């Protein structure tokens, strides 16, 4: 692993609100996550954690408010500054793990084979590299999804958006995820994770969407 200079980067949301199916999930949400920081999104089911992540990834338009990831290259749009690992694993049963990740590299991230090998190693996927994705267990599928994070360069995609990242992961894989997150933060990246599991990451800030909504509802 080569050491990258820390990228000064921050994600700022201002007065964000989200409506889905005629229902306001959250409103007036303003927060800032700086370089090297991590934020856990918590709250009850259906409070809008996944919707917030999709807004931050540029996949969903907020009802109002703005999201900015910057600098540098502030002109790039949101989807190109972040990597979203959603709760669904975008795997193709017919492709092997290596073919799948190589395809993602070619289509989305760029980068060479050494980056791919490092990503496979980081999540202990080397023994599974030539196994078709159809034969993987759900924990293994999750690890393949997470390995995608390491394909993106921390300069181009400093923001990691994780939706229930620890789902189906065993304790060893959780440690590997924590190590990957720590390395990304040390390089100046920032991490936002929606989760119900307590994450044992150091200096983890928490944003409770349920509490945010309750505080707004009070007169």
């Amino acid at each position, binding site marked *: 692993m080569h050491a990258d200079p820390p990228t000064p980067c921050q994600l700022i949301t201002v007065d964000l609100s989200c409506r889905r199916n005629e229902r306001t999930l959250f409103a007036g949400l303003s927060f800032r996550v700086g370089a090297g920081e991590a934020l856990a999104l918590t709250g009850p089911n259906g409070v809008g954690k996944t919707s917030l992540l999709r807004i931050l990834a540029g996949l969903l338009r907020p009802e109002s408010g703005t999201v900015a990831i910057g600098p540098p290259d502030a002109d790039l749009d949101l*989807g190109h500054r972040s*990597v979203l690992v959603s709760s669904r694993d*975008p795997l*193709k049963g*017919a492709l092997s793990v290596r073919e799948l990740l190589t395809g993602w590299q070619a*289509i989305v991230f760029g980068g060479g084979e050494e980056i791919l090998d490092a990503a496979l190693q980081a999540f202990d996927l080397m023994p599974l590299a030539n196994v078709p994705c159809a034969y993987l267990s759900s924990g293994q599928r999750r690890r393949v999804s997470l390995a995608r994070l390491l394909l993106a360069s921390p300069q181009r995609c400093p923001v990691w958006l994780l939706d229930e990242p620890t789902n189906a992961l065993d304790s060893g894989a959780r440690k590997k995820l924590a190590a990957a997150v720590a390395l990304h933060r040390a390089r100046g990246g920032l991490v936002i994770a929606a989760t119900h599991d307590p994450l044992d990451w150091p200096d983890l800030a928490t944003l409770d969407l349920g509490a945010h909504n309750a505080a707004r509802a009070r007169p």
Partner: protein
Amino acid sequence: MSAFLALVKRDLALALRIGGGASFALVFFLMIVTLTPFAIGPDLNLLARIAPAILWIGAVLATLIGLDRLFQADAEDGTLDLIKASALPLEAVVLAKCLAHWLTTGLPLALAAPLFGLLLAMEPAGMAAASASLLVGTPALTFIGAVGAALTAGIRRGGVLIAIMALPLMIPVLIFGVAACNAAVGGTIAFATPFAILCALTLIFAVVGVIGAAAGLRQSD
């Protein structure tokens, strides 16, 4: 450009692997072509006269196979979100997926048309015309279907909906495709006239279909 080619390559690999369905369209095409003589009976003159129509109807219906999964498969498992994060504009993504679909559906149909023409007692000139018209006409079918596929990407069992939306738009392609085949074996107009219109239809739908499908995908969230 490399991302575009990688997307085409990935879709081709997925289609050609077991369960990918690349051969389904061709087999379905063969089924339609072989069923017709059984239904019509042993009248070779009649069969030869309606052969272009049968080949083209078969091609139109066979193109619909696989269209329902064109975007739906990627929308279901979240791959579409990932592709949206690539530097490729969505129009290029649609074009790549249409190209892969045509290479595994329309192109085999066009290449197999002379062979299937034998089953329908076609003349050699008619077979050549059928092959040529399918070669330039089937991309239009794919592009028309792509719009329907994009609009139904988030819907389960969207296949029938695609057929209902796309088939009416495919009528002009069908008319001029069959007209080109008929013109090659006689008739009052030159082969080049309907063939040129068919080429024009493909070019028009290449633009309209790609832009329309990309717009449909943008709305899907």
